[in-house]
């Protein structure tokens, strides 16, 4: 069974006409469930707002207070990409609490994996700064809660943009392994292979930047050569996925060449890294072409459930293999130096 945490009826984060991060992304993402024909395998769970104590594990209280005040005062443009309105605060709290709800449901035995379809996305938000459409770092809030309970967390970030906020929040946290594949160069400009974790947690950040046009076989190579060996050493208790689907070839914000079939392969590969059933949570991040989002979510959820929904064939032959090899070498050099 698959736990799905979502609440599109409670979505009051209005970004304005022309902004690609729209409420319409939620029905598109949830439409993947029916597209994949897995509705009968879904257990729907309502989100709850994250508490102040939960937020404080990933964000500074001064930032949380400022964001709340900003929204309640009417909101506005936080930066050229990121906006908030009065309803953004409650919506963001729900989005931050939803991955925690997912882990609680899995812990109860409600499903073998979970999918969190909430917005705004989170992986660019740092401990004290909103950016890149993100207000609160949803994955980080959930991971920090698990770590506070004494568990080890793998975060796999396959969004096309580097999750600078997640990386920064766990830079010195030895109980979180953060692994990102992302287009390079591209916003936010972080995520070089040489960024491998702080002095308190060396080797727990792994970045594999790939060039525009990279295809699914390149990311699978990254998973085989970089992700899998690291995970075998790390032995996580949980696998959280920053599941952005803006690496799809039709996405308007980036230039990778992934297809829905590729996301099925990535999801299956990541789910296999979990220590057992009920320990994988996919959390929606980016993905701004609604049809690509629908198909890619459907393909990913089907793969996690062990069924097949591949409306697009996996891609191959794009550039990036040498970038993966270089990243693997950088990580090996970093490990040898420790």
């Amino acid at each position, binding site marked *: 069974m698959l736990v799905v945490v979502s609440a599109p009826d409670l979505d009051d984060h209005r970004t304005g006409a022309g902004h690609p991060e729209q409420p319409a992304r939620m029905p598109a993402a949830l439409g993947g469930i029916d597209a994949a024909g897995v509705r009968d395998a879904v257990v729907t769970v309502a989100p709850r707002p994250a508490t102040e104590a939960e937020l404080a594990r990933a964000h500074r209280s001064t*930032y949380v207070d400022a964001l709340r005040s900003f929204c309640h005062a009417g909101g506005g443009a*936080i*930066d050229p990409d990121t906006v908030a309105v009065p309803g953004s605060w409650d919506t963001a709290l729900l989005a931050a609490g939803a991955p925690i709800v997912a882990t609680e449901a899995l812990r109860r035995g409600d499903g073998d994996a979970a999918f969190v379809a909430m917005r705004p996305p989170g992986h660019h938000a740092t401990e004290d*700064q909103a*950016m890149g459409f993100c207000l609160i770092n949803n994955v980080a809030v959930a991971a920090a809660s698990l770590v506070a309970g004494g568990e080890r967390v793998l975060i796999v970030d396959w969004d096309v943009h580097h999750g600078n906020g997640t990386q920064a929040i766990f830079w010195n946290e030895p109980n979180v392994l953060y692994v990102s594949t992302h287009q390079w160069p591209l*916003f*936010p400009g972080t995520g070089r292979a040489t960024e491998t974790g702080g002095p308190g947690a060396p080797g727990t950040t792994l970045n594999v930047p790939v060039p525009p046009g990279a295809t699914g076989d390149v990311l699978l190579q990254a998973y085989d050569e970089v992700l899998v060996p690291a995970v075998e050493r790390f032995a996580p208790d949980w696998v959280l996925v920053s599941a952005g689907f803006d690496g799809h070839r039709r996405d308007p*914000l*980036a230039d990778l060449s992934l297809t829905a079939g590729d996301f099925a392969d990535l999801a299956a590969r990541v789910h296999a890294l979990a220590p057992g059933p009920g320990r994988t949570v996919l959390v929606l991040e980016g993905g701004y072409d609604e049809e690509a989002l629908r198909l890619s979510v459907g393909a990913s959820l089907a793969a996690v459930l062990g069924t097949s929904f591949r409306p697009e064939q996996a891609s191959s032959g794009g550039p990036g293999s040498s970038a993966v090899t270089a990243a693997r070498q950088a990580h090996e050099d970093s490990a040898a130096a420790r």
Partner: protein
Amino acid sequence: MKGPVTVVVGTDGSAAAACAMRWSADLVQATGGEVVAVHALGLLSHMPTNGSPANGEGDRRAAAPHTAAEHRTQIEAQLHRWCVPLQASGVAHRCFVSDGSPVLALLQAATDAAADLIVVGRRGSGGFPGLLLGSTSHELTAHAHLPVVVVPGPVEPPAR
């Protein structure tokens, strides 16, 4: 401030950014040193209806590129024109494009250049006045470990 200074200045092609550049050039003409101009590419910067530069040049939007990579190439070509105030001043300068939010790009550029100060123009269009969030200059003052100078943009006639 004595001796040569290194100034990092933000640019987005706007009139306010040009004012900040001229102020930076005047300072470096007096002290010696270098001006480093930075333009940050945001998530939306290549979107046809949301793109930078902030002054909304119609011709650029009409010919909006289709991909982020194309946009980067286009902005790098335009950057030379945005840096005309620096070229006209004759001071030593560099101009480059960076990925990321304006705040983080300026802070990183300042670190890389061992800068003495950061200069930005004030347009007053970002965010919500008086609150922590919402403007590049405000965020810079909260995060920077070096002086930040905010240069007023061109004076606009009062609204009628």
